[in-house]
């Protein structure tokens, strides 16, 4: 029983990091990133490959995050002047190219065989029996740290500029804000978190392959962000929990309903797709909309 709880807790923690990263890019900065899974994969493979080569796990995690952040910034540089639709298409393409590289460059990534035996951090220092719990604790420690850092950013002048860029791009320009550089930074920060989540994912499962990084993952993380509340970072954990529990609990449905498990898997995704569309039409701000920031004198970190 504890195993199942720990599994859910760890997965929710990992995806929360990715979700608040995406929510930062979309909910706060208004940038559409349809290539989330690509940065997730970069984090996973960077950390996986480095740690398999002997690098300590904490360095692998850091490297995974940094690599994903760097690629986010790099892709933003030549393309951020594009309108949101072209940018969305570009990110989709990028994620797919990343997956193709992971699949085809088997001299580096072992191709479709994937990486096996990725080391778990803490396994050396924690007695057996407590290792899964320890890892779960590590994930949540990092999740909370990331959340606090993002909250700090959002309630700072940087956060205000991001919101201005999100709402009225030209207004921000007319007041002297370097909108373009700001967008690159927002994407890099979100990318850092998504990469970290990917790295944690790799170390949790200890086995990853390109098949783990299909475009469906991007759509699932989007569903998590949209359901929780765009622009509301704390609410992302709710969205993550709802989707994770839903996706995993229906596995048990096949014992109750005599349906082919493949069909159940497809129907799960049908529901997720439906949820996204419903949210977009009926409640685009999600379950917990972004809260208004009421400022009083001497007030600095009120609000979210």
């Amino acid at each position, binding site marked *: 029983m504890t195993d199942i709880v720990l599994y859910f807790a760890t997965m929710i923690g990992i995806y929360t990091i990715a979700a608040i990263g995406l929510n930062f890019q979309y909910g706060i900065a208004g940038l559409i990133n349809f290539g989330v899974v690509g940065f997730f994969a970069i984090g996973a493979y960077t950390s996986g490959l480095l740690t398999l080569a002997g690098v300590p796990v904490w360095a692998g995690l850091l490297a995974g995050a940094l690599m994903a952040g760097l690629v986010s910034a790099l892709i933003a540089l030549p393309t951020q002047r594009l309108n949101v639709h072209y940018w969305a298409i570009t990110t989709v393409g990028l994620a797919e190219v990343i997956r193709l590289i992971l699949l085809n460059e088997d001299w580096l990534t072992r191709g479709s065989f994937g990486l096996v035996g990725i080391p778990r951090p803490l396994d050396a220092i924690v007695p057996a029996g407590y290792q899964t719990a320890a890892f779960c604790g590590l994930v949540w420690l990092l999740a909370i740290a990331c959340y606090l*850092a993002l909250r*700090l*950013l959002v309630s*700072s*002048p*940087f*956060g*205000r*500029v991001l*919101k*201005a860029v999100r*709402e*009225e791009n*030209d*207004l*921000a*320009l*007319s*007041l*002297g*804000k*370097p*909108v373009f550089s700001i967008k690159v*930074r927002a994407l890099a*920060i979100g990318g850092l978190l998504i990469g970290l989540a990917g790295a944690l994912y790799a170390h949790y499962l200890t086995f990853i392959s390109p098949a783990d990084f299909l475009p469906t993952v991007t759509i699932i993380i989007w569903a998590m962000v949209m359901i929780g509340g765009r*622009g509301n970072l704390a609410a992302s954990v709710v969205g993550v929990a709802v989707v994770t529990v839903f996706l995993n609990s229906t596995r048990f449905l096949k014992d109750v309903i005599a349906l082919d498990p493949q069909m159940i898997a497809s129907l799960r995704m049908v529901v997720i797709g439906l949820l996204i569309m419903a949210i977009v039409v009926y409640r685009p701000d999600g379950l917990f909309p*972004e809260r*208004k*920031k*009421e*400022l009083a*004198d*001497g*007030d*600095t970190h009120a609000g979210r």
Partner: protein
Amino acid sequence: MATPMLAVERLSKSFSGFHALQDVSLEVAERSIVGLVGPNGCGKSTLFNCVSGFLPFDSGQVRFRGEQIGGMAPHRIARLGLVRTFQNGHATKRMTVLENMLMAAAGQTGELPLQALLRRAAIRTQQTAQLGRAREILETLKLTRVANEYAGNLSGGQQKLLALGRAVMCDADLIMLDEPAAGVNPTLVREFVSMVRDLRDRSAKTFLIIEHDMKFISGACDHVFVLSAGRNLSSGTPAQMQRDPRVLEVYLGKRHAAVA
């Protein structure tokens, strides 16, 4: 003869064959309030966009305080001290009036992510000072009541006042207002005029204002440039323009055409 704060020389801009602006020139002296008028479609907004860097222009020169700003990115021009407002207000739907004001402040610490994370004490002090200044400005603009309202929920007139407030907050030297009186009730227009004059007299601000409302123009402006069909038509004091036969023809002539 002091360098004008803004000098536009023979600016031309066309869109796929349509000549929006042809050899337009104007000057705005420091601490003056200059009006830019003309019938609809004569190129006033295009001129604003070209001067403020939002639109590239084909030929001509724009100099701000003697420095060439043609081809500069809009945010760099704004940082030099030239701030423009927009006709449609660009009201932020999910940022409050105070957030707008704080955001508008120029040169603040904490707009870079690392600064935001590490220089928390400095940011706190800065925000207290900014809030004080913002509230002062909002008070003169009579927007104190709505300080914590989303900007998008304000009335049209209030949004225009907020735009002025932002420009003041960011320490702009030349404020370019795009139709500040449009959609504003007449009493508020009078107050707007006195606010603008006040800002010029007490805070040394310079203004270039696009307007259709002649009461605003005659009440506020020292000098007026009249455009017609993308070209300079005339210029002078508001009183002179109201008597200028060329100006009258362009305005009355249009009315005749509409009736026919």
